[in-house]
């Protein structure tokens, strides 16, 4: 795309209507510019809508594999009974009630551990730290977040298992408590980083005004910052919950393999996610069991979709302010 090949410089600007190059070459260049710009823009737009395409695709394909069994599935029995006997010949029963309770109990306990620690650490890193310590801590928390879930599961199976057996004097160390501690450690980085972001977003003028009134750091946090940042902190918690609900490998390895309704935190359970992971390898493609596992997938997808929607609405509430 040469502007000039004659070597002569463009003439002074006031020469009539300023033709500076052979008309054909100019027209070619003009045409090429517009066309290539349009092509590239089209490609970029396609990439841009890819996220929407994939979300729908995920729902579509999971639904496609699971749909054939839906008419035959008694939804009430499916969702609310705890009798999960998918491999029982002739009398297969698909009740995920116990699995839902398993997911709920593990999520609840892990959030009960993660939220206070996470928010506390977020407050510490954001308000009580010097600059160097802050950078160092943030790096550590980032590395904590990078640990793969299968490694956490492994830790649960070995270290945590033994530790729980010894400390709490129970027979079995693979239980709700085990998985919850792991999930808490996994969710804390999410809560800390988003929590820290929303605390950082509170304008410095709030802090300065409070300081000028003689408040201590702690009072500022308690009375000014936490209320001001509560939307962001809530979003952080919701995202942490979403992560806990969707976690697979760590709970697969650490909760034991008992499908039952838990009565204490030392009981073994199974979660929705672990069930799919554990049983999918053994099912025949197209069988009822196979399809029901896909239906559980639909259930999981819907739960996390709703949670993300809620978190997004909460965050939108911040932007409106």
């Amino acid at each position, binding site marked *: 795309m040469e502007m000039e090949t004659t070597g002569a410089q463009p003439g002074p600007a006031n020469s009539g209507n300023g033709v500076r190059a052979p008309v054909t070459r100019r027209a070619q260049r003009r045409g090429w510019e517009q066309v290539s*710009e349009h092509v*590239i*823009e089209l490609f*970029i737009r396609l*990439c*841009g*809508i*890819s*996220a*929407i395409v994939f*979300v729908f695709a*995920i729902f579509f*394909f*999971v639904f496609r*594999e699971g749909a054939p069994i839906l008419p035959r599935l008694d939804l009430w029995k499916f969702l609310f009974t705890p009798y999960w006997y998918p491999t029982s010949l002739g009398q297969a029963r698909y009740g995920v009630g116990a699995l839902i309770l398993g997911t709920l109990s593990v999520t609840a306990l892990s959030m009960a551990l993660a939220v*206070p620690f996470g928010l*506390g*650490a977020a407050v*510490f890193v954001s308000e*009580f730290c010097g600059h160097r310590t802050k950078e160092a801590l943030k790096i550590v*928390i*980032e590395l*904590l977040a*990078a*640990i*793969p*879930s299968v*490694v956490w*599961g*492994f*830790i649960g*199976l*070995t*270290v945590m298992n033994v530790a729980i057996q010894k400390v709490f004097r129970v027979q079995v160390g693979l239980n709700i408590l085990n998985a919850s501690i792991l999930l808490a*450690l996994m969710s804390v980085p999410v809560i800390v980083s988003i929590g820290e972001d929303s605390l950082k977003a509170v304008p410095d003028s709030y802090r300065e005004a409070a300081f000028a009134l003689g408040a*201590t*750091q*702690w*009072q500022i946090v308690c009375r000014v910052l936490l209320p001001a940042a509560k939307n962001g902190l809530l979003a952080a918690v919701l995202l942490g919950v979403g*992560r806990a609900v*969707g*976690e*697979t*490998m760590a709970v697969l*390895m650490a909760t034991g393999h008992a499908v039952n309704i838990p009565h204490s935190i030392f009981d073994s359970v199974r979660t929705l*996610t672990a069930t*799919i*992971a554990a049983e*999918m*390898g053994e099912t025949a493609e197209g069988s009822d069991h196979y399809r029901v*596992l896909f239906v559980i*997938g639909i259930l*999981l*997808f819907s739960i*996390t*979709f709703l*949670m*993300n*929607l809620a978190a*997004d609405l909460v965050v939108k509430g911040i932007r409106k302010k």
Partner: protein
Amino acid sequence: MQTADAARFAQTPFVRKKHRAELLARCVFGGMTLGMIVPLLLIIGYLLCQGAPLLSWAFLTTNPSSGMRKGGLWPALLGTVWLVVTALCVSAPVGVFAAVYLNEYAKDNWFTRIVHLAVVNLAGVPSIVHALFGLGAFVLFAGLGRSILAASLTLAIMTLPVIIASTKEALASVPLSFREACWNVGATRWQTIRRIVLPNSISGILTGVILQVSRTAGETAPIMFTGAVFFKNVEEGNLFAYSLKDQCMALSMHLYTVTTQVTNAPEPLPYAIAVVLLGTVLLVNAAAIAVRVYLRSRKKW
């Protein structure tokens, strides 16, 4: 006069109580932070100790044998590399361009909000649901069968939203005035992006991509039924021992199977695998942080 001033600013009992509460709060929050970090360090140390006997170069470069009770990690290591590279070759370009669309081309209307919502939701999909999707879409519907390609595509879609989000943030950090200066001299939107915006957001983009490398290497669920396999022997030392149509072993999957399904494995073996996996992941993350720090120091404005 001095003493009167001093008396005015002396601490009252009320103020002392406030300071004590402050100190207490500082300790409590600091303790909470430590409460996360210390167990982590202890655990990593324990893993290292237990796995140390088996760690060696041979461990990394030989095939497993005797039902995986002896031998090394080579097929799993290579498989992980193949999965990561293939997945990122797909998700990095698509993710970067999607972020370019969102930050540079998209108008502020309801459609853009939906796209944004889709990105956030895609990020929140559980990894096992990604596995089901991969099974339904790539393995079955697209007829790829269980293969590295199917597993990589599944992983690519999993990492896509995070690459989009981090790239978008990097692009947004380039000031609008640069773009306006370019438009004023007759540059097209794409020329502006290509010459000014993208080169100056490369640090954020790279960091995001490298972090996804470590995440891809560690994921197990999405590859479980889409391409990862229990055991496979491949030619040692050959980087191209796999092809896209093959099934492969992977480090994450290998840790899972050895821990849960291999009986009578020597005790250090799973610890050694965990150390290799964890070490790889942490090293890649450290590289990402180093890249970020280095490129930030060379900031041009």
